[in-house]
């Protein structure tokens, strides 16, 4: 386990994802600005049928994109905390109080992402119609909720584990 290749790979992957996350955020923001300055081109690009009022679709998609941009700092928080946890594992000392706090922060961020996803899904449904079907990979997710609960539980496990280790260290 100490010589596992998974951890170095995870560390590299997380570093790449941290950068990609900001690139994704910048790309979404750029698209929002461009789409709002060229609405006619954008409506044509996403194939909005003629005869449908474009304004609600534009407002809805802009709101979805901005909520997507909001997810960027949350993703950053998750990725950087996970990176620090991986570093402590590589150093051979993961059962520290800091990791319990990091896991708790990740759990809250995952919860916030779930809420964002539900709001995005609701907006998507409100602007979708028979003429303009919109299939978004957003909304309530059982696996997402399970991930939130699992991370909160793991944070508690780490907190208890840290206390137990402190006790064990003082045991003669």
């Amino acid at each position: 386990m100490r010589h596992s290749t998974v951890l170095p790979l995870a560390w590299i992957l997380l570093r790449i994802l941290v950068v990609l996350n900001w690139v994704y955020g910048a790309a979404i923001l750029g698209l929002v600005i461009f789409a709002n300055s060229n609405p006619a081109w954008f409506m044509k690009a996403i194939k909005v049928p003629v005869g449908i009022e474009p304004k609600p679709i534009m407002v809805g998609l802009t709101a979805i994109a901005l909520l997507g941009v909001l997810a960027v700092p949350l993703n950053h928080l998750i990725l950087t905390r996970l990176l620090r946890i991986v570093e402590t594992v590589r150093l051979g000392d993961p059962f520290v109080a800091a990791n319990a706090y990091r896991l708790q922060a990740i759990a809250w961020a995952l919860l916030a992402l779930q809420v964002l996803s539900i709001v995005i899904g609701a907006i998507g449904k409100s602007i979708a119609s028979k003429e303009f079907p919109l299939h978004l990979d957003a909304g309530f997710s059982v696996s997402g909720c399970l991930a939130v609960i699992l991370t909160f539980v793991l944070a508690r496990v780490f907190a208890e584990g840290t206390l137990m280790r402190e006790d064990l260290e003082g045991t003669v």
Partner: protein
Amino acid sequence: MPIVVRLDDLLHDRRMTLTELASQIDITLANLSILKTGKARAIRFSTLEAICDILECQPGDLLHFESDVQ
């Protein structure tokens, strides 16, 4: 801390050093030193048994409770 470890007194009575005790009970000198100075948070029954065996004493001779209330 209300629990006082009287290892120093026991060793003095038996003219034994901490190093000698450590070598006989197979516990590191560092850990015994932690116990002697009262910095330990807990003591294993196996440690207590080994110390009592070598020093020919009872657990009560090694550990003493002193109330905080004056």
